[in-house]
Protein backbone atom coordinates (compact mmCIF):
# COMPACT_ATOMS: atom_id res chain seq x y z
CA UNK A 1 0.00 0.00 0.00
CA UNK A 2 1.26 3.48 -0.80
CA UNK A 3 1.85 5.40 2.39
CA UNK A 4 1.60 9.16 2.02
CA UNK A 5 3.27 11.45 4.55
CA UNK A 6 0.78 12.65 7.16
CA UNK A 7 -1.87 10.09 6.14
CA UNK A 8 -3.34 8.05 9.00
CA UNK A 9 -1.25 5.05 7.96
CA UNK A 10 2.00 7.03 8.04
CA UNK A 11 2.13 6.54 11.82
CA UNK A 12 1.72 2.82 12.14
CA UNK A 13 4.37 0.12 12.26
CA UNK A 14 4.26 -2.27 9.33
CA UNK A 15 5.66 -5.79 9.34
CA UNK A 16 9.04 -6.31 7.76
CA UNK A 17 9.55 -8.87 4.99
CA UNK A 18 11.02 -11.24 7.58
CA UNK A 19 7.95 -10.92 9.83
CA UNK A 20 5.64 -11.53 6.87
CA UNK A 21 7.69 -14.59 5.91
CA UNK A 22 7.54 -16.00 9.45
CA UNK A 23 3.76 -15.51 9.56
CA UNK A 24 3.40 -17.96 6.69
CA UNK A 25 6.42 -20.20 7.39
CA UNK A 26 4.82 -23.60 7.98
CA UNK A 27 7.52 -24.93 10.35
CA UNK A 28 7.52 -21.80 12.53
CA UNK A 29 3.74 -21.58 12.45
CA UNK A 30 3.46 -25.20 13.53
CA UNK A 31 5.50 -24.33 16.61
CA UNK A 32 3.29 -21.26 17.18
CA UNK A 33 0.20 -23.46 16.72
CA UNK A 34 1.29 -25.59 19.68
CA UNK A 35 2.33 -22.54 21.71
CA UNK A 36 -0.91 -20.58 21.12
CA UNK A 37 -3.03 -23.64 21.88
CA UNK A 38 -1.21 -24.06 25.19
CA UNK A 39 -1.70 -20.36 25.99
CA UNK A 40 -5.39 -20.65 25.21
CA UNK A 41 -5.74 -23.77 27.33
CA UNK A 42 -4.23 -21.92 30.30
CA UNK A 43 -6.70 -19.04 29.87
CA UNK A 44 -9.58 -21.50 29.45
CA UNK A 45 -8.57 -23.41 32.59
CA UNK A 46 -8.25 -20.16 34.60
CA UNK A 47 -11.81 -19.29 33.52
CA UNK A 48 -13.65 -22.48 34.49
Amino acid sequence: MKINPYDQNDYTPVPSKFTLFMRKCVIWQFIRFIAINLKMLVVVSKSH
Partner: protein
Amino acid sequence: MARVVVMGAGVSGHTACTFLNDWLGSEHEVVVVTPNSQWNWIPSNIWVGVGRMSSEDVTFDLKPVYDKVGLTYKQAKAVSIHPEGSEGESSPYITIEYTESGKEGTTEVLTYDYLINATGPKLNFAATEGLGPDSGHTVSVCTHDHATHAAHKLQESIEKMRAGETQEILIGTGHGMCTCQGAAFEYTFNVEHEITLAGVRDKANITYISNEYELGDFGVGGMHIKRGGYITSGKVFTESLFTERGVKWIKRAHVNKVEAKKVHFETLDGNQHEKEFDFAMLIPPFSGVGLKAFGKDGSDITDTIFAPNGFLKVDADYTPKPYEEWSIEDWPQTYQNPIYGNIFATGIAFAPPHLISKPMKSPNGTPINPTPPRTGMPSGIIGKTVAKTIKEMILNGATEPTHKVSMGEMGAACVASAGKGMLSGTAASLTMYPVVPDYKKYPDYGRDLDHTSGEIGLAGHWIKHTLHHLFLHKAKLKAGWTLIPE
Protein backbone atom coordinates in the same frame (compact mmCIF):
# COMPACT_ATOMS: atom_id res chain seq x y z
CA MET B 1 -39.84 -34.26 38.88
CA ALA B 2 -38.52 -30.79 38.07
CA ARG B 3 -38.79 -29.05 34.72
CA VAL B 4 -36.10 -26.71 33.48
CA VAL B 5 -37.03 -24.54 30.52
CA VAL B 6 -34.24 -23.03 28.46
CA MET B 7 -35.23 -20.22 26.09
CA GLY B 8 -32.81 -20.04 23.17
CA ALA B 9 -30.55 -22.67 21.62
CA GLY B 10 -27.55 -20.60 20.63
CA VAL B 11 -24.09 -20.86 22.14
CA SER B 12 -25.08 -20.46 25.79
CA GLY B 13 -28.58 -22.01 25.72
CA HIS B 14 -27.43 -25.12 23.87
CA THR B 15 -24.54 -25.51 26.33
CA ALA B 16 -26.85 -25.12 29.32
CA CYS B 17 -29.63 -27.44 28.14
CA THR B 18 -27.37 -30.24 26.91
CA PHE B 19 -25.30 -30.35 30.12
CA LEU B 20 -28.42 -30.15 32.30
CA ASN B 21 -30.05 -32.94 30.34
CA ASP B 22 -26.90 -35.04 30.75
CA TRP B 23 -26.63 -34.41 34.50
CA LEU B 24 -30.29 -34.60 35.49
CA GLY B 25 -31.14 -37.86 33.74
CA SER B 26 -34.63 -38.97 32.86
CA GLU B 27 -36.17 -38.20 36.28
CA HIS B 28 -36.28 -34.52 35.40
CA GLU B 29 -37.27 -32.75 32.24
CA VAL B 30 -35.23 -30.24 30.27
CA VAL B 31 -37.20 -28.35 27.63
CA VAL B 32 -35.54 -26.07 25.10
CA VAL B 33 -37.62 -23.47 23.30
CA THR B 34 -35.99 -21.86 20.31
CA PRO B 35 -37.36 -20.47 17.04
CA ASN B 36 -34.56 -21.92 14.93
CA SER B 37 -34.65 -25.45 13.53
CA GLN B 38 -30.88 -25.41 13.11
CA TRP B 39 -27.88 -24.65 15.26
CA ASN B 40 -25.43 -22.16 13.75
CA TRP B 41 -21.73 -21.92 14.54
CA ILE B 42 -21.86 -18.14 14.17
CA PRO B 43 -18.08 -17.39 14.08
CA SER B 44 -17.78 -19.25 10.77
CA ASN B 45 -20.50 -17.05 9.22
CA ILE B 46 -17.57 -14.80 8.29
CA TRP B 47 -16.44 -17.45 5.83
CA VAL B 48 -19.99 -17.90 4.55
CA GLY B 49 -20.04 -14.15 3.95
CA VAL B 50 -17.13 -14.39 1.52
CA GLY B 51 -18.40 -17.54 -0.19
CA ARG B 52 -15.75 -19.85 1.31
CA MET B 53 -18.33 -21.90 3.21
CA SER B 54 -22.01 -22.59 2.67
CA SER B 55 -24.86 -22.32 5.16
CA GLU B 56 -24.80 -26.13 5.37
CA ASP B 57 -21.18 -26.06 6.53
CA VAL B 58 -22.01 -23.95 9.57
CA THR B 59 -25.38 -25.39 10.64
CA PHE B 60 -27.04 -28.66 11.58
CA ASP B 61 -30.60 -29.71 12.45
CA LEU B 62 -31.34 -29.53 16.16
CA LYS B 63 -34.21 -32.03 16.33
CA PRO B 64 -32.24 -35.25 15.70
CA VAL B 65 -29.58 -34.16 18.19
CA TYR B 66 -32.12 -33.40 20.93
CA ASP B 67 -34.12 -36.55 20.13
CA LYS B 68 -30.97 -38.63 20.50
CA VAL B 69 -30.48 -37.51 24.11
CA GLY B 70 -34.16 -37.25 25.09
CA LEU B 71 -34.26 -33.48 25.41
CA THR B 72 -37.68 -31.94 24.79
CA TYR B 73 -37.40 -29.46 21.93
CA LYS B 74 -40.04 -26.95 20.94
CA GLN B 75 -39.38 -24.99 17.80
CA ALA B 76 -41.04 -21.85 19.04
CA LYS B 77 -40.20 -18.42 20.33
CA ALA B 78 -40.81 -17.43 23.93
CA VAL B 79 -43.14 -14.46 24.15
CA SER B 80 -43.75 -13.75 27.84
CA ILE B 81 -42.66 -14.80 31.30
CA HIS B 82 -45.17 -15.20 34.15
CA PRO B 83 -42.88 -15.79 37.15
CA GLU B 84 -45.74 -15.98 39.67
CA GLY B 85 -48.17 -17.83 37.41
CA SER B 86 -51.56 -16.22 36.92
CA GLU B 87 -55.11 -16.36 38.32
CA GLY B 88 -55.73 -19.63 36.51
CA GLU B 89 -52.25 -21.20 36.75
CA SER B 90 -50.44 -21.46 40.08
CA SER B 91 -47.04 -22.47 38.66
CA PRO B 92 -44.67 -20.05 36.98
CA TYR B 93 -44.85 -20.33 33.22
CA ILE B 94 -43.84 -18.84 29.89
CA THR B 95 -45.96 -18.47 26.80
CA ILE B 96 -44.53 -19.62 23.53
CA GLU B 97 -45.48 -19.25 19.89
CA TYR B 98 -44.51 -22.02 17.49
CA THR B 99 -42.38 -21.27 14.43
CA GLU B 100 -42.26 -24.93 13.37
CA SER B 101 -43.61 -25.51 9.90
CA GLY B 102 -47.27 -26.52 10.09
CA LYS B 103 -47.70 -25.14 13.63
CA GLU B 104 -46.75 -21.51 12.98
CA GLY B 105 -48.47 -19.06 15.27
CA THR B 106 -49.90 -21.72 17.63
CA THR B 107 -49.41 -20.60 21.22
CA GLU B 108 -48.80 -22.70 24.31
CA VAL B 109 -48.30 -22.26 28.03
CA LEU B 110 -45.21 -23.96 29.40
CA THR B 111 -44.76 -24.21 33.17
CA TYR B 112 -41.32 -24.37 34.69
CA ASP B 113 -39.49 -24.88 37.95
CA TYR B 114 -36.33 -23.21 36.65
CA LEU B 115 -36.00 -20.89 33.68
CA ILE B 116 -32.90 -19.89 31.72
CA ASN B 117 -33.12 -16.93 29.38
CA ALA B 118 -30.49 -17.54 26.69
CA THR B 119 -32.25 -15.68 23.90
CA GLY B 120 -29.15 -13.77 22.76
CA PRO B 121 -29.51 -10.49 20.90
CA LYS B 122 -32.17 -8.95 18.72
CA LEU B 123 -30.34 -7.64 15.67
CA ASN B 124 -31.68 -4.11 15.99
CA PHE B 125 -31.32 -2.87 12.40
CA ALA B 126 -34.25 -0.50 13.01
CA ALA B 127 -32.03 1.64 15.27
CA THR B 128 -30.43 3.16 12.14
CA GLU B 129 -32.57 4.21 9.21
CA GLY B 130 -31.70 2.24 6.10
CA LEU B 131 -29.53 -0.33 7.89
CA GLY B 132 -29.69 -4.05 7.17
CA PRO B 133 -30.37 -6.52 4.41
CA ASP B 134 -34.15 -6.79 4.77
CA SER B 135 -35.39 -3.23 4.41
CA GLY B 136 -32.11 -1.35 4.18
CA HIS B 137 -29.09 -0.93 1.95
CA THR B 138 -26.36 -2.84 3.79
CA VAL B 139 -25.58 -6.51 4.17
CA SER B 140 -24.90 -8.41 7.40
CA VAL B 141 -23.05 -11.58 8.46
CA CYS B 142 -24.85 -12.01 11.79
CA THR B 143 -26.89 -15.02 10.62
CA HIS B 144 -25.94 -17.66 8.07
CA ASP B 145 -28.75 -16.48 5.77
CA HIS B 146 -27.50 -12.91 5.97
CA ALA B 147 -23.97 -14.12 5.30
CA THR B 148 -25.05 -16.08 2.21
CA HIS B 149 -26.73 -12.94 0.89
CA ALA B 150 -23.59 -10.91 1.70
CA ALA B 151 -21.44 -13.37 -0.28
CA HIS B 152 -23.66 -12.88 -3.36
CA LYS B 153 -23.46 -9.12 -3.08
CA LEU B 154 -19.69 -9.27 -2.63
CA GLN B 155 -19.40 -11.46 -5.70
CA GLU B 156 -21.41 -8.88 -7.69
CA SER B 157 -18.95 -6.21 -6.59
CA ILE B 158 -15.99 -8.40 -7.54
CA GLU B 159 -17.53 -8.96 -10.99
CA LYS B 160 -17.83 -5.19 -11.43
CA MET B 161 -14.17 -4.80 -10.46
CA ARG B 162 -13.25 -7.46 -13.01
CA ALA B 163 -15.13 -5.38 -15.57
CA GLY B 164 -12.89 -2.43 -14.67
CA GLU B 165 -15.11 -0.50 -12.20
CA THR B 166 -13.72 0.79 -8.94
CA GLN B 167 -15.75 -0.25 -5.91
CA GLU B 168 -16.06 1.47 -2.54
CA ILE B 169 -16.22 -1.21 0.15
CA LEU B 170 -17.36 -0.15 3.61
CA ILE B 171 -17.33 -2.53 6.58
CA GLY B 172 -17.87 -1.84 10.27
CA THR B 173 -20.47 -0.86 12.82
CA GLY B 174 -23.86 0.56 11.83
CA HIS B 175 -24.55 2.56 14.99
CA GLY B 176 -22.69 4.33 17.80
CA MET B 177 -23.77 1.71 20.35
CA CYS B 178 -22.71 -1.46 18.55
CA THR B 179 -20.72 -4.33 19.96
CA CYS B 180 -19.20 -7.20 17.93
CA GLN B 181 -16.43 -5.11 16.32
CA GLY B 182 -14.46 -8.38 16.12
CA ALA B 183 -16.85 -9.73 13.49
CA ALA B 184 -16.58 -6.54 11.41
CA PHE B 185 -12.79 -6.66 11.78
CA GLU B 186 -12.68 -10.29 10.58
CA TYR B 187 -15.00 -9.63 7.69
CA THR B 188 -12.90 -6.66 6.54
CA PHE B 189 -9.78 -8.77 6.19
CA ASN B 190 -11.57 -11.75 4.69
CA VAL B 191 -13.10 -9.47 2.06
CA GLU B 192 -9.70 -7.90 1.40
CA HIS B 193 -8.18 -11.39 1.07
CA GLU B 194 -10.87 -12.52 -1.40
CA ILE B 195 -10.55 -9.38 -3.51
CA THR B 196 -6.79 -9.87 -3.63
CA LEU B 197 -7.21 -13.52 -4.66
CA ALA B 198 -9.64 -12.39 -7.37
CA GLY B 199 -6.82 -10.23 -8.75
CA VAL B 200 -8.75 -6.95 -8.51
CA ARG B 201 -7.32 -5.44 -5.33
CA ASP B 202 -6.34 -2.29 -7.22
CA LYS B 203 -10.03 -1.69 -8.02
CA ALA B 204 -11.21 -1.73 -4.38
CA ASN B 205 -11.09 1.10 -1.88
CA ILE B 206 -11.75 -0.61 1.43
CA THR B 207 -12.73 1.43 4.49
CA TYR B 208 -13.47 0.28 8.03
CA ILE B 209 -15.89 2.40 10.04
CA SER B 210 -16.16 1.92 13.77
CA ASN B 211 -17.68 3.36 16.93
CA GLU B 212 -14.46 2.55 18.79
CA TYR B 213 -12.48 5.43 20.29
CA GLU B 214 -9.37 3.77 18.93
CA LEU B 215 -9.01 0.70 16.75
CA GLY B 216 -8.46 -2.40 18.87
CA ASP B 217 -10.89 -1.31 21.59
CA PHE B 218 -13.29 -4.17 20.67
CA GLY B 219 -15.69 -3.09 23.41
CA VAL B 220 -13.34 -4.29 26.13
CA GLY B 221 -11.46 -1.02 26.49
CA GLY B 222 -8.63 -2.34 24.29
CA MET B 223 -5.76 -4.41 25.60
CA HIS B 224 -2.02 -4.23 26.04
CA ILE B 225 0.42 -6.95 25.13
CA LYS B 226 4.14 -7.54 25.51
CA ARG B 227 5.83 -7.50 22.13
CA GLY B 228 9.22 -6.54 20.71
CA GLY B 229 10.59 -5.39 24.05
CA TYR B 230 7.64 -3.07 24.76
CA ILE B 231 4.29 -3.22 26.42
CA THR B 232 2.19 -1.96 23.55
CA SER B 233 -1.44 -1.02 23.06
CA GLY B 234 -3.51 -3.28 20.83
CA LYS B 235 -4.29 -0.11 18.84
CA VAL B 236 -0.79 -0.24 17.38
CA PHE B 237 -1.17 -3.81 16.17
CA THR B 238 -4.66 -3.26 14.85
CA GLU B 239 -3.69 -0.15 12.90
CA SER B 240 -0.63 -1.98 11.63
CA LEU B 241 -2.80 -4.71 10.10
CA PHE B 242 -5.06 -2.11 8.48
CA THR B 243 -2.05 -0.36 6.99
CA GLU B 244 -0.47 -3.61 5.82
CA ARG B 245 -3.68 -4.59 4.01
CA GLY B 246 -4.33 -1.13 2.63
CA VAL B 247 -7.56 -0.57 4.53
CA LYS B 248 -8.45 3.00 5.58
CA TRP B 249 -10.32 3.54 8.81
CA ILE B 250 -12.86 5.91 10.29
CA LYS B 251 -13.17 5.73 14.06
CA ARG B 252 -15.45 7.31 16.72
CA ALA B 253 -18.35 7.15 14.27
CA HIS B 254 -22.09 6.82 14.83
CA VAL B 255 -23.80 5.83 11.60
CA ASN B 256 -27.19 7.54 11.80
CA LYS B 257 -28.65 6.97 8.34
CA VAL B 258 -27.99 4.76 5.34
CA GLU B 259 -29.23 5.57 1.87
CA ALA B 260 -28.66 3.56 -1.28
CA LYS B 261 -24.88 3.86 -1.74
CA LYS B 262 -24.35 6.46 1.01
CA VAL B 263 -23.92 6.42 4.80
CA HIS B 264 -24.37 9.45 7.02
CA PHE B 265 -22.47 9.50 10.28
CA GLU B 266 -21.61 11.70 13.20
CA THR B 267 -18.19 11.59 14.79
CA LEU B 268 -17.35 12.12 18.44
CA ASP B 269 -16.37 15.73 17.75
CA GLY B 270 -20.00 16.37 16.76
CA ASN B 271 -19.36 16.78 13.03
CA GLN B 272 -21.62 15.15 10.46
CA HIS B 273 -20.13 13.29 7.50
CA GLU B 274 -21.13 11.24 4.48
CA LYS B 275 -19.41 8.33 2.79
CA GLU B 276 -20.35 6.70 -0.47
CA PHE B 277 -20.24 2.93 -0.89
CA ASP B 278 -20.96 0.22 -3.42
CA PHE B 279 -20.87 -2.66 -0.93
CA ALA B 280 -21.40 -2.18 2.81
CA MET B 281 -21.51 -4.70 5.65
CA LEU B 282 -22.45 -2.92 8.85
CA ILE B 283 -23.12 -4.72 12.14
CA PRO B 284 -26.37 -3.63 13.83
CA PRO B 285 -26.63 -2.70 17.51
CA PHE B 286 -27.98 -5.45 19.78
CA SER B 287 -30.88 -5.30 22.20
CA GLY B 288 -32.90 -7.88 24.12
CA VAL B 289 -35.35 -9.89 22.04
CA GLY B 290 -38.39 -8.12 23.50
CA LEU B 291 -39.73 -10.66 26.00
CA LYS B 292 -42.51 -9.34 28.25
CA ALA B 293 -43.10 -10.25 31.89
CA PHE B 294 -46.39 -10.26 33.80
CA GLY B 295 -47.33 -10.51 37.48
CA LYS B 296 -49.93 -12.88 38.90
CA ASP B 297 -52.65 -10.28 38.37
CA GLY B 298 -51.65 -9.82 34.75
CA SER B 299 -49.88 -6.49 35.37
CA ASP B 300 -46.89 -5.71 33.16
CA ILE B 301 -43.69 -6.20 35.21
CA THR B 302 -41.30 -6.18 32.24
CA ASP B 303 -39.48 -3.13 33.63
CA THR B 304 -38.82 -4.79 36.97
CA ILE B 305 -37.03 -7.84 35.64
CA PHE B 306 -35.60 -6.50 32.39
CA ALA B 307 -33.22 -3.56 31.92
CA PRO B 308 -34.31 -0.81 29.48
CA ASN B 309 -32.20 -2.43 26.72
CA GLY B 310 -34.34 -5.58 27.02
CA PHE B 311 -31.69 -7.77 28.68
CA LEU B 312 -32.61 -9.63 31.87
CA LYS B 313 -31.42 -8.20 35.18
CA VAL B 314 -29.22 -10.54 37.17
CA ASP B 315 -26.98 -10.25 40.24
CA ALA B 316 -24.98 -7.31 38.83
CA ASP B 317 -24.66 -3.93 40.55
CA TYR B 318 -26.75 -1.68 38.32
CA THR B 319 -26.22 1.47 40.41
CA PRO B 320 -25.18 4.19 37.94
CA LYS B 321 -21.61 5.28 38.67
CA PRO B 322 -18.85 7.10 36.83
CA TYR B 323 -16.29 5.17 34.79
CA GLU B 324 -13.58 5.86 37.38
CA GLU B 325 -15.60 3.99 40.03
CA TRP B 326 -16.33 0.87 38.02
CA SER B 327 -14.97 -2.36 39.40
CA ILE B 328 -15.18 -6.05 38.61
CA GLU B 329 -17.49 -6.43 41.65
CA ASP B 330 -20.20 -4.72 39.55
CA TRP B 331 -20.26 -7.74 37.24
CA PRO B 332 -22.61 -10.65 37.92
CA GLN B 333 -21.42 -14.00 39.23
CA THR B 334 -24.48 -16.22 39.52
CA TYR B 335 -26.69 -14.80 36.70
CA GLN B 336 -29.71 -15.23 38.97
CA ASN B 337 -32.52 -12.71 38.75
CA PRO B 338 -32.62 -10.77 42.06
CA ILE B 339 -36.43 -10.98 42.34
CA TYR B 340 -37.16 -14.47 41.06
CA GLY B 341 -34.51 -16.93 42.24
CA ASN B 342 -35.52 -19.61 39.74
CA ILE B 343 -34.84 -17.38 36.72
CA PHE B 344 -31.35 -17.01 35.25
CA ALA B 345 -29.92 -15.30 32.16
CA THR B 346 -26.86 -16.47 30.24
CA GLY B 347 -24.76 -15.23 27.32
CA ILE B 348 -25.81 -12.03 25.62
CA ALA B 349 -29.26 -12.17 27.30
CA PHE B 350 -28.04 -10.96 30.72
CA ALA B 351 -27.98 -7.21 31.35
CA PRO B 352 -24.41 -6.01 31.92
CA PRO B 353 -24.00 -3.46 34.75
CA HIS B 354 -22.40 -0.92 32.42
CA LEU B 355 -20.04 -0.70 29.48
CA ILE B 356 -16.47 -1.99 29.63
CA SER B 357 -15.12 0.69 27.26
CA LYS B 358 -15.17 4.25 28.56
CA PRO B 359 -18.53 5.96 27.85
CA MET B 360 -18.24 8.79 25.31
CA LYS B 361 -20.74 11.35 23.99
CA SER B 362 -20.49 13.81 21.13
CA PRO B 363 -21.25 17.50 21.86
CA ASN B 364 -24.73 16.74 20.44
CA GLY B 365 -25.26 14.19 23.20
CA THR B 366 -24.91 11.16 20.93
CA PRO B 367 -23.33 8.19 22.73
CA ILE B 368 -20.52 6.82 20.58
CA ASN B 369 -18.96 3.89 22.37
CA PRO B 370 -18.90 0.13 21.97
CA THR B 371 -21.23 -1.82 24.24
CA PRO B 372 -19.84 -4.84 26.12
CA PRO B 373 -19.29 -7.99 24.06
CA ARG B 374 -20.24 -11.37 25.49
CA THR B 375 -18.39 -13.57 23.05
CA GLY B 376 -18.63 -17.30 22.55
CA MET B 377 -16.34 -18.47 25.32
CA PRO B 378 -17.89 -16.39 28.15
CA SER B 379 -21.38 -17.22 26.83
CA GLY B 380 -20.64 -20.95 26.94
CA ILE B 381 -18.94 -20.81 30.34
CA ILE B 382 -21.81 -18.82 31.86
CA GLY B 383 -24.34 -21.28 30.38
CA LYS B 384 -22.50 -24.21 31.95
CA THR B 385 -22.06 -22.44 35.31
CA VAL B 386 -25.78 -21.72 35.57
CA ALA B 387 -26.51 -25.33 34.58
CA LYS B 388 -24.29 -26.52 37.46
CA THR B 389 -26.18 -24.32 39.93
CA ILE B 390 -29.59 -25.55 38.74
CA LYS B 391 -28.38 -29.14 38.94
CA GLU B 392 -27.37 -28.57 42.58
CA MET B 393 -30.72 -26.94 43.32
CA ILE B 394 -32.66 -29.84 41.84
CA LEU B 395 -30.56 -32.80 42.93
CA ASN B 396 -29.20 -31.58 46.26
CA GLY B 397 -31.73 -28.99 47.36
CA ALA B 398 -29.32 -26.05 47.22
CA THR B 399 -31.20 -22.85 48.03
CA GLU B 400 -28.55 -20.42 46.78
CA PRO B 401 -26.48 -20.53 43.58
CA THR B 402 -23.57 -22.90 44.16
CA HIS B 403 -21.47 -21.94 41.14
CA LYS B 404 -20.11 -18.56 40.26
CA VAL B 405 -18.17 -17.06 37.39
CA SER B 406 -17.54 -13.41 36.62
CA MET B 407 -16.34 -11.71 33.46
CA GLY B 408 -13.93 -9.94 35.79
CA GLU B 409 -12.32 -13.29 36.60
CA MET B 410 -12.79 -14.99 33.29
CA GLY B 411 -10.50 -14.83 30.29
CA ALA B 412 -11.29 -15.03 26.63
CA ALA B 413 -9.51 -16.70 23.77
CA CYS B 414 -10.47 -15.29 20.39
CA VAL B 415 -9.26 -16.05 16.92
CA ALA B 416 -10.05 -13.34 14.39
CA SER B 417 -9.70 -14.63 10.86
CA ALA B 418 -7.89 -12.39 8.42
CA GLY B 419 -8.34 -14.63 5.38
CA LYS B 420 -9.09 -18.30 4.75
CA GLY B 421 -6.66 -20.83 3.28
CA MET B 422 -4.65 -23.71 4.77
CA LEU B 423 -1.38 -22.20 3.51
CA SER B 424 -2.41 -18.68 2.53
CA GLY B 425 -4.73 -17.84 5.44
CA THR B 426 -3.94 -15.82 8.52
CA ALA B 427 -5.70 -14.99 11.75
CA ALA B 428 -5.04 -12.93 14.85
CA SER B 429 -4.97 -15.20 17.90
CA LEU B 430 -5.82 -13.27 21.04
CA THR B 431 -5.98 -14.22 24.68
CA MET B 432 -6.95 -11.84 27.43
CA TYR B 433 -7.33 -12.23 31.14
CA PRO B 434 -9.65 -11.05 32.52
CA VAL B 435 -12.25 -9.86 30.00
CA VAL B 436 -13.31 -6.96 32.24
CA PRO B 437 -10.16 -5.07 33.27
CA ASP B 438 -9.42 -5.31 36.98
CA TYR B 439 -7.43 -2.20 37.91
CA LYS B 440 -7.29 -3.19 41.60
CA LYS B 441 -5.46 -6.41 40.88
CA TYR B 442 -3.56 -5.24 37.80
CA PRO B 443 -3.18 -1.47 38.41
CA ASP B 444 -1.18 -0.65 35.28
CA TYR B 445 -3.18 -2.19 32.47
CA GLY B 446 -6.12 -3.89 34.17
CA ARG B 447 -5.07 -7.28 32.85
CA ASP B 448 -2.56 -10.01 33.55
CA LEU B 449 -0.02 -9.46 30.78
CA ASP B 450 1.28 -13.03 31.15
CA HIS B 451 -2.10 -14.25 29.92
CA THR B 452 -2.94 -11.43 27.53
CA SER B 453 -1.40 -11.90 24.13
CA GLY B 454 -1.91 -11.46 20.43
CA GLU B 455 -0.17 -12.56 17.27
CA ILE B 456 -0.95 -12.93 13.60
CA GLY B 457 -0.11 -15.88 11.43
CA LEU B 458 -1.07 -19.06 9.67
CA ALA B 459 -1.26 -20.86 13.03
CA GLY B 460 -4.24 -18.68 13.94
CA HIS B 461 -6.02 -19.81 10.81
CA TRP B 462 -5.38 -23.46 11.65
CA ILE B 463 -6.75 -22.86 15.15
CA LYS B 464 -9.87 -21.15 13.79
CA HIS B 465 -10.38 -24.03 11.37
CA THR B 466 -9.90 -26.60 14.15
CA LEU B 467 -12.33 -24.74 16.42
CA HIS B 468 -14.95 -24.77 13.66
CA HIS B 469 -14.89 -28.59 13.55
CA LEU B 470 -14.40 -29.03 17.30
CA PHE B 471 -17.36 -26.87 18.31
CA LEU B 472 -19.66 -28.37 15.70
CA HIS B 473 -18.62 -31.82 16.99
CA LYS B 474 -19.37 -30.72 20.55
CA ALA B 475 -22.68 -29.09 19.65
CA LYS B 476 -23.78 -32.24 17.81
CA LEU B 477 -23.13 -34.13 21.09
CA LYS B 478 -20.78 -36.54 19.36
CA ALA B 479 -18.33 -38.81 21.22
CA GLY B 480 -16.47 -36.99 23.98
CA TRP B 481 -18.49 -33.76 23.66
CA THR B 482 -18.50 -33.14 27.42
CA LEU B 483 -14.69 -33.07 27.44
CA ILE B 484 -14.39 -30.19 24.97
CA PRO B 485 -14.15 -26.92 26.91
CA GLU B 486 -16.48 -24.03 26.13
